[in-house]
């Protein structure tokens, strides 16, 4: 233990510490720096590699460049209906109102969007959006967004970046956030960050499933760190399956196929050639909300009407080859290279893949403040905007709108209590956290963290699939507890080195994944109904009583506790916006 003594860490002080360098983290950092503060961005990968780059379809904003009828009210209503009304309505309101401004601001910072013939930003149709609403750049909108924000951030005065650092503990002093502990991936050296406010923008939790579009980074660190620090989690049972992931070849299973394929006219067929969405949502068809399409594909496969590799067919061959290549260039490339399929001539095989966590930290709509003073959250790690199901394109706009708000929120908190960065820390807590991080290095014979990670993924895939049931969820919880007990004493896979040791890094990631898995299962057990992404075979109906309820998870002395929290009803003008908006058939209501 002596090589782990507290003397071995370097101390770095800043005003606002931002964890995560995806869209939300970068937008938050820019906003905080604009307030004249020192901002330090800490990210697990290299700058510009965050999950935001994978967003393909576009950013939803009611700019009405293509459909003049569009307005924030309709975007708000679409978001609420898509989220099956358990969204934080204030977040949905702010999001719909502010997204256009955030997109235009991005353009002022150098982002280049596809244009309409009049030279305005073009907007494409997308699932469950009433009007064409997604500003886009071919099918690489996320890359454009992150590159623009990245350049803006690194050139902003006061902003610094620490790349390839994992944070494994949030530290509090006097009941509020005061710092965090991290290690450099390259050499395992430790850093004690001191800050007056902390913005979590760590992204999602999808890595706890086997078939996912998420990268190794999406282990839910932000939710887990904040949970350990006493923050409340919300809607954790709401995990989105994207309807269209690649299914074949095996090596690329789960890789995302953008919804833009359907937005640009792609149709889904089963092995009999039937356009089966007719039976699930005859009005919106392929552009129904993601939960509906994902379940429909699942049902087709279960009924034996699937494709040879256990998916269905997504066909866009009726479009001209030049059209496909210009609107969906990376999809064309991806299939040609990885599956040897020319999507201008052949259909794609697709099946649902884990994509996005609607649940996460409970935050204040205006400022992104979590329930822990000084701790803020934005982006996928925060919950509320998307409710029970996120609409495509609402994630990028979420990052921009709430990244800015949370960055400003964190800056205000840092200004109000600048001394927090110097407050005395609990030395025992610091040393305990370091010892726990280092412990696997002392257990070379311990179980392999890679194996444990695969077991978590198997358990979640088996017990919390697209359609769940009470018995399975209970069994899943037992399995996660059992794996958790073994993870607590796991090794690194055999190596004791501190130098870029992914086995050791994985042992730390396990702790985050286990917290998220448990919260998902417990939330799913409590929500005895089917709503949005959460479908239960033992409670197949939507329970109107639960429309006003969100399930909140928090840490107690006896472990994780999940409680039902009743929302304040939305004000009349918002309720009217939902009723007034184009009354669409939604399958859940009539099931």
């Amino acid at each position, binding site marked *: 233990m002596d090589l782990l003594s507290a003397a071995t860490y370097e101390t770095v002080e800043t005003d606002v510490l931002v964890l995560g360098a995806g869209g939300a983290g970068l937008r938050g950092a820019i906003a905080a720096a604009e307030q004249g503060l020192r901002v330090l961005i800490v990210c697990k990968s290299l700058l510009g590699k965050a999950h935001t780059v994978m967003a393909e379809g576009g950013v939803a904003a009611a700019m009405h460049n293509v459909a003049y009828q569009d307005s924030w009210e309709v975007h708000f209503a679409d978001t609420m209906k898509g989220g099956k009304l358990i969204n934080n309505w204030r977040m949905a309101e702010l999001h719909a109102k502010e997204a256009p401004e955030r997109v235009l601001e991005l353009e002022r910072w150098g982002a280049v969007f596809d244009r309409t013939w009049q030279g305005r930003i073009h907007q494409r149709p997308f699932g469950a959006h009433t009007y064409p609403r997604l500003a886009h750049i071919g099918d690489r909108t996320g890359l454009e967004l992150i590159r623009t924000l990245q350049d803006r951030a690194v050139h902003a005065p006061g902003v610094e970046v620490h790349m390839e650092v994992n944070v494994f503990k949030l530290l509090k002093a006097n009941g509020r956030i005061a710092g965090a502990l991290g290690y450099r991936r390259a050499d395992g050296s430790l850093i004690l960050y001191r800050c007056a406010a902390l913005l979590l923008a760590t992204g999602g939790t999808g890595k706890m499933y086997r078939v996912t579009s998420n990268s190794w980074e999406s282990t839910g660190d932000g939710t887990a760190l904040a949970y350990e620090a006493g923050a409340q989690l919300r809607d954790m049972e709401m995990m989105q399956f994207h309807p269209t992931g690649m299914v074949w070849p095996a090596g690329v299973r789960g890789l995302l196929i953008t919804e833009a394929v359907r937005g640009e006219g792609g149709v889904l067929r089963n092995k009999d050639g039937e356009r089966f969405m007719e039976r699930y949502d005859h009005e919106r068809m392929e552009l129904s909300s993601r939960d509906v399409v994902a379940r429909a594909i699942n049902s087709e496969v279960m009924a034996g009407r699937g494709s040879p590799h256990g998916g269905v067919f997504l066909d866009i061959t009726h479009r001209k080859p030049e059209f496909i290549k210009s609107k969906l260039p990376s999809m064309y490339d991806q299939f040609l290279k*990885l599956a040897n399929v020319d999507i201008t001539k052949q259909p794609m095989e697709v099946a649902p893949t884990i994509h996005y966590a609607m649940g996460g930290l409970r935050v204040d709509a205006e400022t992104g403040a979590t329930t822990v003073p000084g701790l803020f959250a934005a982006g996928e790690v925060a919950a509320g905007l998307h409710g029970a199901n996120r609409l495509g394109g609402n994630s990028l706009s979420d990052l921009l709108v709430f990244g800015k708000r949370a960055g400003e929120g964190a800056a205000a908190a840092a200004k109000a209590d600048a001394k927090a960065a110097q407050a005395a820390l609990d030395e025992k807590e610091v040393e305990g956290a370091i010892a726990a991080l280092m412990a696997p290095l002392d257990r070379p014979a311990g179980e392999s963290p890679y194996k444990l990670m695969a077991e978590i993924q198997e358990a979640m895939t088996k017990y919390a699939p697209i359609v769940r049931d009470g018995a399975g969820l209970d069994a899943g919880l037992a399995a996660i507890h059992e794996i958790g007990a073994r993870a607590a004493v796991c090794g690194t896979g055999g190596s004791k080195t501190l130098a870029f040791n992914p086995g050791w890094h994985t042992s730390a990631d396990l702790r985050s994944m286990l917290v998220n898995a448990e919260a998902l299962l417990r939330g799913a057990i409590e929500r005895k109904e089917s709503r949005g992404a959460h479908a239960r075979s033992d409670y197949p109906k939507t329970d109107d009583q639960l429309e006003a309820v969100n399930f909140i998870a928090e840490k107690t002395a006896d472990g994780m506790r999940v409680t039902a929290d009743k929302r304040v009803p939305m004000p009349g003008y918002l309720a009217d916006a939902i009723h007034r908006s184009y009354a669409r058939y939604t399958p859940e209501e009539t099931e």
Partner: protein
Amino acid sequence: MEISNLDLKIWRGDSSGGDIVSYRVPVREGMVVLDAVLWVQANMASDLAVRWNCKAAKCGSCSAEINGFPRLMCKTPITEYGASLTVRPMQAFPIIKDLVTDVSWNYEVNKQIPPFTPSEKDATSSEPWRMQQKDVERVMEFRKCIECFLCQDVCHVLRVHDAKSAFYGPRFMVRIASLEMHPKDALDRRPMLKGKAGVGYCNITKCCTEVCPEHIKITDNAIIPLKERMDDVYFDPIRAIAQRLGGGSKRRPV
């Protein structure tokens, strides 16, 4: 040809040296080199250092040299190589460990390039900007760059001559081109191109274009036009006379 096992050779080591280590990897249908490397990491060498993120050729993290050719591991099916292949880290950058190199120099360079700057008039106008598709398409090619740094790796100015203090490299020529050719950018980066960025060092071997996973025509569409712009202002005798007579550029030089 179907093979059941792959003989995967990976360079293992750090800044003090290293060697090729062979691993026997069971082959799955559709396997890419990154899958094979990650299989080794999970089953045979837990501390094998490798960068990766999206596994979909969108983030540019998993750059390496596969049988000597700079490629993205996630986009390279092993079937292209038969029963054996060798993976090495990028050679143009200092090694950290195994397949992970220190690419921080690139981030330093990016900081030195003045960011997008619209004209005063555009910056203060309250109306949303209008641009035509054909005008933005020109820079869209450059903005496809995923910063995998394979072009930097293969550039002989950086790789063989290690002239990082003289030339920013193809990636940042693309970056500068994306700014210079942006319809709304008003800054003049030509003095920088001639000076610190060192566009003159490129002698158009087009190796960068050949390795670009995004198929950006780096040399033809970015570097050569930048060279022409720079030549225009610094080496065109007629322009020089015209400027002396008072017809200078209206753009703000860096």
